[in-house]
């Protein structure tokens, strides 16, 4: 599997994504600067966490207008896999690659802690390595992870099996405890928790490895 990680000004989980992908795939991903309008020929594009453009205006809003995002959209339209983590999820909703929006946490505070997630959907390139209903622990670290969409959209997401991860104990007020969702074509995943921070047993667990393994098995 060939992967690329997009780097926006003030992305700050780009290195973590790179380290996790290198560890899991055995080769370093391409690091793509947001001003580059060309994407290398890759199977997976990762939009990492961070505070692109300082979260000014709205989280992810300015990054969604970066030149590279035109290529990311084209990649997604062709069926290429896109994984948006944390700020990456916010960029994906702002880019309309995923429905809904991420609002300020209900508690109005940034929250960083390990959370238990339920894997709700294993019919995806991202989660086929998990068991349906499996509990996994990933860290969250965000101030704006409160997922919102209107009821019709939420019903549709649920009906089409596009809610992939759900919080066991909701840390941010997300509608229907949603932690991660798929696009209609199931090739774009946006999630607030950080799978790239749980690939190394020395620093918090290994529950994220199966997500990368699923991608490698599907896309290689």
């Amino acid at each position: 599997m060939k992967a690329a990680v997009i780097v926006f000004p003030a992305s700050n989980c780009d290195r973590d994504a790179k380290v996790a992908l290198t560890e899991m795939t055995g080769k370093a991903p391409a690091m793509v600067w947001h001003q580059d309008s060309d994407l290398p020929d890759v199977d997976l594009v990762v939009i990492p966490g961070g505070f692109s453009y300082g979260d000014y205006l709205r989280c992810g809003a300015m990054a969604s207008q970066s030149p590279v995002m035109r290529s990311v959209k084209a990649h997604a339209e062709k069926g290429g896999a896109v994984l948006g983590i944390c700020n990456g999820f916010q960029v994906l909703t702002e880019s309309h690659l995923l429905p809904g929006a991420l609002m300020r946490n209900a508690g109005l505070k940034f929250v960083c802690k390990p959370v238990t997630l339920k894997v709700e959907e294993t019919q995806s390139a991202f989660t086929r390595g998990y068991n349906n209903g499996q509990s996994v622990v990933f860290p969250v670290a965000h101030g704006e992870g409160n997922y919102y969409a209107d009821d019709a959209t939420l019903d549709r997401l649920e009906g089409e099996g596009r809610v992939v991860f759900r919080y066991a104990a909701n840390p941010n007020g997300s509608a229907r405890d949603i932690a991660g969702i798929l696009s209609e074509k199931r090739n774009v995943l946006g999630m607030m928790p950080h799978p790239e921070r749980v690939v190394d047993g020395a620093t918090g667990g290994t529950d994220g490895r199966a997500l990368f393994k699923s991608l490698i098995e599907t896309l290689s």
Partner: protein
Amino acid sequence: MTEITPAIVAEHGLSPDEYARINTLLGRAPNMVELGVFSVMWSEHCSYKSTRAHLRKLPTTGPQVIQGPGENAGVIDIGDGDACIFKMESHNHPSFIEPYQGAATGVGGIMRDVFTMGARPIAMMNALRFGAPDHPKTRHLVAGVVSGIGGYGNCMGVPTVGGEVNFHPSYSGNILVNAMCVGLARTDNIFLSAAKGAGNPVVYFGSKTGRDGIHGATMASAEFDDASEEKRPTVQVGDPFAEKLLLEATLELMATDAIIAIQDMGAAGLTSSSAEMGDKGGSGIELNLDMVPQREANMTAYEMLLSESQERMLAVLKPGREAEAQAIFKKWELDFAVIGITTDTKRLVIKHKGVVAADMPITALSDEAPVYERPYTLREPASGTPAYDKARPVLASLEKILGSADMASRRWIWEQYDHSVMNDTQQAPGGDAAVVRVHGTKKALAISTDVTPRYCKADPRRGGMQAVAECWRNLTAVGATPLATTDNLNFGNPQKPDIMGEIVAAIDGIGEACRALDFPIVSGNCSLYNETNGEGIFPTPAIGGVGLLKDASKMATIAFKRDGDVVILIGETRGHLGQSIYLREIEGKEEGAAPRVELDVEKKNGDFVRRLIEQGRVDTCHDVSDGGLAVAIVEMAMPRGLGAQVGQASIADAIGFWFGEDQARYVIAVPFAQAEKIVAEARAASITVAELGKTGGDSFSIDGKDSIAIAKLRTAHEDWFPNFMKAEL
């Protein structure tokens, strides 16, 4: 031109004697711009004029030290060509006036100090002191400071991995916000601030200069009164987005060999960065302010020189490398400008709109700054042990203490900090020390910040020693070898002999402990004048220590891990209750002697414990400090809800045994099969050791009689902070 009157001199925080000295050094009267420059360069904050003579007594060298105090931060060797660069700094005054921005820019400033030297920041710590919980401003300040620290650090993508928090009425009018940054560099790529050589371009990069923070350093060198909130315009506003870009761009520039010297613009901005670079390099600097990127129109030379706008750097480049540097900053969308040149005149010359706005010998600003041997009186340390009720039930007191303001869980705070970004955090907040891996290796750095202000108030010298000893012990308790420290000395008004006495005694104690424990001080910061309406804070010399674990897989944590482990106490328990948490929380007494600090015992016990951890024989360890032994054991039980059945093991009475704050003690838990040998080894090494009991069950019980559920204790411990802060929202 404005005439300089005695009133204007006083407004600049300069004494008549100091003004006369400026006249002598210049050979003429200064103009307003020069007066402004002297005012900040000679401020307590920049010149250390009250403490310099005493700070010289601190140990600052050792085989591990690459760079001691005097640069932007200290540098130590951690093997394999890796260097650790770190420093702690206060942002007390601005944080009290505007808690969010004050704390945020404190974080930004200390990070710049570290990456200015070539390090990528890898961990942040903070030591916070707030006023009485029931003081009307306290919640507002806690909420603002915590979100300011998080707002800046989280955006930077540097994990905030630990710290300490106290509440006490002595801080009600003057909180303390001390932030520590730890970074990693290579020993062969460390950048200093000495602007050596003439004819080299002086370049400015980062954010534009505005009118914010003018005279911040002068404010930080004065006491507060009721009108201090009017000083809000002197608090700077932080932009962590700009700082993140500045970090990446600076490290990218450092990967070239274009830099001769570099210095961040912190307190006193352009003035102090250029003066310090010229001073250290033995050169002169000529700046043309017309070239400075400006955020506002019609700024005067005075305003530009004294602005403390954040996220700015000054560097001297090798001639001809300007375009290469400019391209890097263009990529990161930051301002870049050549604003001057180094000279051989040893003068700081400022040009603005075609005229010379200031022209001063650099040594007048630095070496010639006043150094005061301020008069001091050493007061008699508090002594004795106050009376207490020896029959009071232990477990009820224990529950109350675990749920008290100073002892309750700080989860409410640290869950607002991203402590796992960079994916190298091996021990998050909640343990004895934070542990952060050296990226890509099996080594890790342990970090802790410590001071017990109530001990320092009772006995400044002993309190200084204890702060160092506790920091050293916390690093040891995770298995790290303590290497070096940074100190952040927070005191009241040094012009009062009693306060100056506290400073002198505390520095003396710190120095003695650092020497005995081979724990030199490589960087630091003094924050004086922490007073409001004449009331000084408790003396609070915070110590930030860094240690090295050569093999982080051997690291110990505080959590009990196995049923049936033997709980062993290392160190002697005499039942010292003077100045203890117990006396304060249960008997309402802040009295008595601070605990004795025996540095030889401290070293012997610590070295013994560390060796056991390094040998892979102990993975569960906790130092005994605030609250004493019972609190320590319960802190080990709470993480996994695994209890312990223990009994008293010395002649101290039950209160003294379970709540005494005798120093140099650790609790370890080891499998039964190994316990006997460890106890025998301790005895053979003449170390006081006792088996207290076993882990198991879900409660904490004493002497087989009284018992309390760990879940109940955890509720008391966890609920205090969220309940306290609820009233804020």
